């Protein structure tokens, strides 16, 4: 049975004369003794003969098809004639303008989204946890500061009547 399996796997190669000499001898010896494998060999040999006889004639075209294809090949190979632009330039510009406008309309939202997306977000507010109990330190300090600011140097007035760089008035100089 193992020999049959081995032989049948090599029958196509044997028919096509593609087996090395030693394998060919082994397979041929088995075919001499096994009638089932021999019958399989004969069937496959017939199939090969059928294929070799039939496939070269399969799908043969008629001359009209070949002439049609040749005409198309020739037209494809012919160099294309230079195209003369018969349209008015204004028309082509207006067409281009329409396309550009459409593109702008389509791309603007995308560009707008991209701009907003690139702006960094504000940092989230931090929660300050007070670990100490509030004291009246600030309340005490503020009056002290106010008192310091309000305190003026001795001899200075809060609202000088005459600026330092203002020349003296003649009425004051002449009695």
């Amino acid at each position: 049975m193992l020999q049959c399996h081995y032989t049948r796997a090599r029958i196509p190669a044997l028919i096509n004369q593609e087996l090395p000499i030693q394998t060919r001898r082994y397979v041929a010896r088995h075919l001499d003794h096994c009638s089932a494998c021999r019958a399989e060999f004969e069937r496959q040999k017939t199939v090969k003969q059928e294929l070799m006889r039939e496939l070269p004639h399969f799908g043969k075209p008629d001359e009209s098809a070949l002439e049609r294809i040749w005409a198309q090949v020739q037209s494809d190979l012919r160099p294309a004639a230079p195209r003369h632009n018969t349209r008015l330039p204004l028309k082509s510009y207006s067409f281009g303008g329409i396309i550009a406008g459409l593109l702008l309309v389509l791309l603007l939202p995308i560009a707008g989204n991209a701009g907003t997306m690139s702006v960094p977000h504000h940092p989230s507010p931090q929660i300050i946890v007070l670990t100490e109990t509030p004291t009246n330190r600030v309340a005490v300090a503020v009056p002290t500061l106010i008192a310091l600011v309000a305190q003026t140097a001795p001899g200075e007035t809060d609202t000088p009547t005459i600026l330092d760089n203002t020349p003296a008035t003649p009425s004051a100089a002449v009695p």
Partner: protein
Amino acid sequence: MADQLSNYEEQSPADVPALIARCLAGDQNSYTQLYNCFATAMYRLCYSLLLNRQDAEDVMQDVFVYAFKNLRRYDSQKSAFKTWLCTIAVSRCRNMYRRKRFLLVDWSQLLHVQFPAPHSDMPEPALTRKDAADVIHAALAELSPRLREAVVLRYGHGLTYREIADIMNCPPKTAESRVRLAHEQLRSRLQPVGHTLLEELWQVQEQ
């Protein structure tokens, strides 16, 4: 042009390099001769792989346009001109499979819908309904594209495994095993019905 295209018999003239040289020199008749030499073979190849006349015509047109436009790139030292054309054709056919893969899906099987078989009023004998080409067509359609390419190039065009490997862009051993697998699958496909049918057909033709 009709007189120039009167003979489409497959031929591979010994002076293909000279023909190509004349084409490159700008001789238009040489292009026609080159097309005449290989048109039938290329059509058979395209049809055998695509199994559709219109697709075969489209691909074949594309193959010759590409080949003639890129004739300077052909290197006779690397491969025969027919092998080069076959390489282009197989590549274009693969593109066509990819394009038509969606259309080739059997939706009735996927959706588990069974369409009724076409009804025939008069029962016809098998021999008048089908012929050898139909049997081969059905058998090739069952094969996967790679196996079909291998078996068509081997048995339909008589190429060597090295040439098949060059065309299919695979090692020669892979080409050999693909031909073998295709052979086995075709045997199981042709044996129950086709084998006897083909033999009967040939007996009828010989009489």
